[in-house]
């Protein structure tokens, strides 16, 4: 059964892409730039964030290249500071935060709940423009001198000691914040008010639950980041002193405000990815997600707990030891809902009919890497070990295991999973499976050595390091090149598949979500008639009955 597959494509000789779909309904560049169709906005997001991803990726490549040798030789230490700062800012604010909600969420959230569009289409379009304005401003700040504070804008470094484009970059992030808020707000309203008849809360696909939880974080967290950035800008421009100890201000206060957003932000990044994994794991093991309710509520639990752990970024910054105690405990609590998810996915696999299409391989990659990333997070949540491991490569490795190994894998899983629905064509299976495996191998080569480097004490954010760390660094850089290939391949074959891919038909994976019960690519209004949800989520027997009924109907008409 090595070639087992659930893919069921229509007869390629006769299949056609439906003439009327969201891509063909209107033409011309303006029909895209002024569109209010959530699917087109999703595509706009997808294209633009891929662009930012590769800029951020190129900066990551420069970092790894510099770290190939112990000396600071490829670039000066100052330049290195700017490079890793811009890598962080671009990857976090312009790729990870908007990635799954912006591209896949915009596209599929309304379809999955059986709506025609998001509740506020104009605001949705505005969110993309804010995103682009922020992104372009950030790039502008980068080419006109860059910023070298690290993506955390730590005061008083950012307010007093550096003379780089802090205000411009801060403004860029402020503007992008609106895009995040608009998306989150739109999602919450849509999920509450636009669900199709019969689509009760506990019939929602888990992707929706995950995005709902992430949206709550976006709506509540982003404004606090905004005010923190405004205060940094005011401090730089007018010296208002709220973060300046000489005037009675407290730099630590900035960290509280910053991490009040930026810790929940990691859940903004990972939760939608977890939603993708739920969909993929269920579809490719032909089983309802084990413990649906637990997985749904664990998303909400992550969102709630996520707001009460921010100070674990500040254990060594001089917060009181009682605060350390409390936040350490709370941090370990947040590991519980994440673990619930992982266990439930594992139980979903148990006795399922598992097939290994590309999205599933990425999902397996996610589960392995996210588990490592999550558990090393517990090391960092325990204040005793955190004091030794924080600010070392251990934390870099931890964060990248969660964000790149977790989120990026989930993003790629989602892109492959829904590609047939978005474009109407299949991606080439063999080469994409290869790309998924390459990504997994390259990722481990890149970041696993960094755990060891961190425990050996190599600090992060330096362009040079003691020569005894070189072997592991070379390994890491070599891994990064493999990883680069793994990310480049999908871009190439996905573009190729736009023209040459096999025609996918409505439901190539035999998945149960409402988005699969309509044509691919979908109509502009998503569904020809408004769907009525008359079954539970992930009900594969319902799908079988549907298919049988459809076949019978076809036989009857052909006989008649």
């Amino acid at each position, binding site marked *: 059964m090595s070639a087992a597959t659930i893919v069921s494509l229509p007869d390629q000789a006769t299949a056609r892409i439906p003439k009327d779909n969201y891509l063909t309904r209107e033409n011309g560049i303006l029909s895209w730039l002024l569109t209010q169709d959530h699917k087109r906005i999703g595509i706009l997001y997808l294209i633009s964030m891929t662009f930012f991803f590769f800029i951020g990726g190129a900066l990551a490549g420069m970092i790894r290249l510099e770290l190939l040798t112990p000396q600071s030789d490829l670039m000066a230490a100052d330049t290195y500071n700017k490079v890793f700062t811009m890598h962080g800012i671009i990857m976090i604010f312009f790729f990870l935060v908007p990635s799954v909600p912006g591209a896949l969420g915009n596209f599929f959230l309304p379809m999955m709940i059986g*709506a025609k569009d998001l509740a506020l289409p104009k605001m949705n379009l505005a969110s993309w423009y804010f995103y682009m304005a922020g992104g372009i401003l950030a790039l502008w700040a980068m080419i006109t001198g860059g910023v070298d504070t690290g993506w955390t804008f730590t005061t008083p470094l950012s307010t007093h000691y550096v003379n780089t484009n802090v205000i411009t970059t801060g403004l860029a992030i402020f503007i992008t914040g609106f895009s995040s808020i608009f998306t989150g707000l739109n999602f919450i309203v849509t999920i509450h008010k636009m669900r199709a008849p019969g689509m009760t809360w506990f019939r929602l696909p888990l992707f929706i639950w995950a995005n709902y939880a992430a949206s709550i974080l976006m709506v509540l967290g982003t404004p606090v980041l905004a005010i923190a950035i405004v205060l940094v800008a005011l401090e730089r421009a007018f010296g208002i002193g709220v973060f300046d100890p000489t005037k009675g201000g407290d730099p630590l206060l900035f960290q509280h405000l910053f991490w009040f957003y930026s810790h929940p932000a990691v859940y903004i990044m990972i939760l939608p990815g977890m939603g993708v994994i739920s969909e993929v794991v269920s579809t490719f093991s032909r089983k309802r997600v084990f413990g649906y309710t637990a997985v749904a509520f664990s998303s909400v639990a992550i969102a709630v707990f996520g707001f009460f752990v921010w100070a674990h970024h500040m254990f060594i910054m001089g917060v009181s030891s009682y605060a350390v105690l409390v936040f350490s405990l709370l941090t370990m609590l947040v590991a519980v809902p994440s673990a619930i998810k992982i266990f439930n996915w594992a139980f979903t696999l148990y006795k399922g009919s598992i097939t290994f299409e590309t999205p599933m391989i990425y999902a397996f990659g996610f589960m392995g890497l996210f588990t490592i990333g999550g558990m090393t997070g517990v090391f960092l949540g325990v204040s005793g070990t955190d004091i030794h491991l924080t600010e070392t490569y251990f934390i870099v490795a931890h964060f990248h295991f969660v964000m790149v190994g977790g989120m990026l894998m989930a993003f790629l899983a989602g892109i492959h999973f829904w590609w047939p629905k978005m474009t109407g064509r299949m991606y080439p299976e063999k080469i994409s499976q290869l790309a998924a495996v390459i990504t997994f191998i390259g990722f481990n080569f890149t970041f696993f050595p960094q755990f060891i480097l961190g425990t050996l004490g190599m600090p992060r954010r330096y362009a040079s390091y003691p020569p005894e760390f070189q072997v592991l660094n070379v390994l890491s850089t070599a891994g990064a090149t493999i990883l680069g290939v793994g990310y480049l391949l999908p871009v190439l074959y996905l573009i190729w598949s736009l023209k040459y891919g096999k025609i996918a038909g409505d439901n190539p994976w035999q998945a149960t979500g409402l988005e699969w019960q309509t044509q691919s690519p979908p109509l502009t209004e998503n569904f020809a008639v408004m769907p009525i949800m008359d079954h539970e989520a992930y009900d594969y027997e319902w799908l079988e009955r549907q298919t049988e009924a459809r076949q019978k109907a076809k036989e009857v008409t052909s006989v008649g």
Partner: protein
Amino acid sequence: MSDSTATAHGHADEHSPFLRHHFESLEQQADATNFAMWLFLLTEVMFFGGLFTVYMIYRNWYYQAFVAASHQLSVTLGGVNSCVLITSSFTMALAVYFAEAKNKKALLTCLITTFTLGVLFLGIKGVEYREKFEKHHFPGTSYSMEAFTNPASDAVATAAGDKPLPVDVAQRTELFFSLYFAMTGLHLAHMLAGMGILLYMIFRAQSGAYTTGHVSYVEYFGFYWHFVDIVWILLFPLLYLINRH
């Protein structure tokens, strides 16, 4: 469990010109946009919330300096301004009522009154700001803490019966004024944005835009205007009335 207002046969409103294509019924549309506006206000609460937290922390730390500095603010002007803003909220609420009653003339009057009261608020605020600049109470290089180290030199401080503060305490008054300008400044920015929208609404209302039975735009702007009002209602006691009970 079912807060979704989508129905499979909500075609009664199909021909309403105000029903946007992706909603099933006017009820669903009103429900969704109303909810969205409240959520937006929630983000505003979080935005100001961060700043209020900063203020509360420093007020706790430097209470003495904050009290002395707050004496420099004119309770009369601040109080008048509070009344002006509350009145403008009232006229805004009336505007919503008249929009619902399809009374174009009264709607316009209310909108214009609201706008005028907004201008009045800004004017009074301007007078207060000017006084701060003149007394070098604007934070920065030219900041002067003369009024706090030597209250006898300052009429307002003398009238409030302030005792001279040691230099290290008096220095913290600058933080108070920083927060004063940041908080009232962000409030002003919100007022300006609101007045921009008001102008647009006055312009549109003249051609009868909101007196056709579809009033949600006026209603939601009202939410925003009341929110900005509430921010001021919190700012006034926090900044002006620190130790005046």
